[in-house]
């Protein structure tokens, strides 16, 4: 690849002048504000919904079905809709994140609170406690640890998402990145990536800290409120938004679109399969080279940092970069999914190798086998189960992400959605949104059924 070097060198050196770093401060603050504001709103909506589900109030079952359904619209798709309806800038981004994460968090809260042990609640109810008291003194204390842990985890995801919604006009660092990429201003892109990786790393540390000190999540509430006040979409424009929304109905595809639908869906699926496949292969190698029990520290440490960079840059951002340097198309989309997934999977694979049961490995070593043979005969086979589960989860996630990659030019069904949007063919656009929605929901359900059947589970990592 003799073309790779000039391509890479175009990104260096990054622009690190004080004036540019200062100019990047407002977009960074905007991105943080987006995450804080939207999560504040999301928690505000989801806590009562979750409690209602936990108390098994009548009517919560259909409500949960609705939440699951909303959750199946990818966040970037929601963001595109919000940008059309409420305008460019952080207001639309905030609303999109609040809707998406509102549904995600509410569903999660409901799931957690519904599994609260019944006997203590029934005992409390027997004392004549009213519903609100039941919630405040029974339900919430029982599940407080779970609520806070998962809350901190979702906050972390929202931060990454807040960078991504900027790419379709949702404000913050993402919008700035799209600008620099469109102008092929790669040195500034590098600067933005450095800022992004740094911010994500700092926030990762914060999230880890928050998981240990979860009550500090509450301290973020004033921050969320301030962000909400700063970036709230202009409510005056709601009648306009309704009008434009009306233009999207009834959804309709032309005959030509129907004919192209299957190849487009295949392109989307291919993107996910190729990206995940490549990531699994890369992660198998890098997972082994970064596992503490297999690799020497001088090798594992730098590779671990490299994997961190890969995964702290979201798929969509990788996609924007690859499309700018290598051109539009599903190959760039697959590579983008692959790069981010490789970073995530490498860590999970390394953990699987490190957590492989010790006794069988000692037994194999005890027969006089060398370290390489112990790895091949015991460590790797023992880690294969968790590795397969992680890979399947990644595939599910990437199928969903692949529908979104098209929105930034990577082909597939998302590209059709984007083209229709750009030409203002809104009824067509809505048709694609609905098709994507149904497909993602189907994949979600299939994967959930599979998980229940094989009793697979994964702690968010």
């Amino acid at each position, binding site marked *: 690849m003799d073309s790779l070097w000039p391509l890479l060198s175009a990104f260096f050196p990054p622009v690190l002048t004080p004036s540019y770093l200062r100019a990047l401060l407002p977009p960074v603050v905007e991105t943080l504000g987006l995450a804080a504001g939207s999560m504040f709103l999301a928690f505000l909506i989801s806590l009562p919904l979750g409690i209602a589900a936990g108390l098994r109030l009548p009517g919560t079952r259909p409500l949960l079905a609705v939440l699951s359904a909303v959750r199946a619209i990818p966040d970037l798709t929601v963001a595109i809709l919000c940008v059309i309806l409420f305008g460019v800038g952080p207001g639309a981004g905030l609303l999109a994140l609040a809707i998406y994460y509102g549904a995600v968090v509410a569903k999660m809260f409901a799931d957690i609170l519904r599994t609260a042990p019944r006997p203590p609640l029934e005992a409390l109810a027997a004392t004549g406690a009213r519903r609100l008291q039941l919630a405040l003194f029974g339900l919430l204390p029982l599940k407080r640890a779970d609520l806070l842990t998962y809350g901190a985890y979702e906050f972390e995801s929202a931060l990454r998402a807040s960078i991504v919604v900027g790419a379709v006009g949702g404000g913050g660092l993402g919008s700035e990145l799209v600008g620099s990429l469109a102008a092929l201003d790669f040195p500034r892109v590098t600067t933005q990536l450095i800022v992004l990786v740094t911010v994500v790393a700092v926030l990762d540390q914060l999230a880890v800290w928050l998981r240990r000190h979860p009550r500090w999540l509450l301290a973020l509430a004033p921050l969320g409120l301030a962000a909400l006040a700063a970036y709230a979409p202009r409510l005056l424009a709601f009648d306009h938004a309704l009008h434009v929304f009306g233009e999207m109905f009834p959804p309709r595809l032309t005959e030509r679109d129907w004919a192209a639908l299957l190849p487009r869906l295949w392109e989307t699926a291919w993107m996910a399969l190729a990206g995940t496949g490549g990531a699994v292969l890369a992660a198998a190698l890098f997972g082994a080279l970064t596992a503490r029990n297999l690799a020497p520290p001088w090798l594992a440490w730098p590779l671990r940092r490299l994997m961190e960079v890969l995964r702290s840059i979201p798929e969509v951002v990788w996609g924007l970069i690859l499309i700018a340097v290598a051109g539009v198309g599903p190959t760039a989309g697959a590579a983008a999914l692959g790069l981010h997934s490789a970073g995530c999977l490498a860590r999970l694979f390394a953990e699987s190798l490190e957590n492989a*049961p010790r006794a*069988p490995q*000692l*037994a194999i070593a*005890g*027969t*006089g086998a*060398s370290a390489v*043979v112990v790895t091949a*005969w015991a460590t790797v086979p023992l880690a294969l189960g968790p590795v397969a589960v992680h890979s399947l989860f990644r595939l599910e996630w990437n199928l969903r992400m692949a529908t979104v990659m098209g929105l930034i030019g990577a082909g597939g069904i998302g590209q059709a959605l984007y083209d229709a949007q750009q030409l203002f063919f809104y009824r067509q656009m809505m048709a694609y949104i609905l098709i994507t929605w149904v497909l993602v929901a189907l994949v979600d359900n299939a994967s959930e059924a599979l998980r229940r059947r094989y009793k697979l589970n994964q702690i968010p990592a």
Partner: protein
Amino acid sequence: MIEPRGDAVRAASRSLLTLRDLAVAPLGAAKPVLRDIALDVGAGECLALVGASGTGKTTLLRTLGGQIAAVAGTIELDGEWLTALRGKALRRLRSRVGFVAQKHDLVEPLRVHQNVMAGALGRWSTLRALRYLCRPTSAELAEARSALEAVGLAHKLRAPTAALSGGEQQRVAIARALVQAPRLLLADEPVASLDPVTARAILELLTSLAKRRGMALICSLHQPELATRYFDRVLEVREGTLTGSAAVHAAQPLRLTA
């Protein structure tokens, strides 16, 4: 009782394993868990270690297996000093020490024949070990089958290991030790998680195989009545040292302070 073969008897005349002044402190222990251990075991001899849990039976076995280093004293196996060996030489010596644990020491995702042939890893080259995982030869499979026949599991040759019962898994672990053809076989509570009938069958199998193949067997147990029934000698580990040694064959059951 199975009559020991001639060569086993000859080997028994001089000591196969000799421990002198052995002291062991596992990682993290402030003072030695075991001290002043002295022991001689001959080839074909079956020795049981009894004693309350936490007294150091497992630590002693793992020290003999080379998994824990001794802090003082010597271990001599077959004329070689285990305590002085490093790297390849240690691995070679380890290949002559077999180990059967209480449970969880088979690689469950592998097939039965793979777990059995793991016993051969000490004498195989790395390439051969990797090749076997994908393409075992028929001669190698025949070896696995004959080891499984000795433990009565030949029909499970290609079964997934995870599908086996606890007793069957223990037999596979013994078959692995047979393939290894060790001079010394260590067994750490091999029957603790098995029902009484299976437990007796496993101990019968272990001791008779040790006799037949001229291996020294050291086995920790927490049921004294099983120890006296199947083993030549019973030692008690108590407060970090070995006490009470007696030949139990044909003698009345030993009184044990447990």
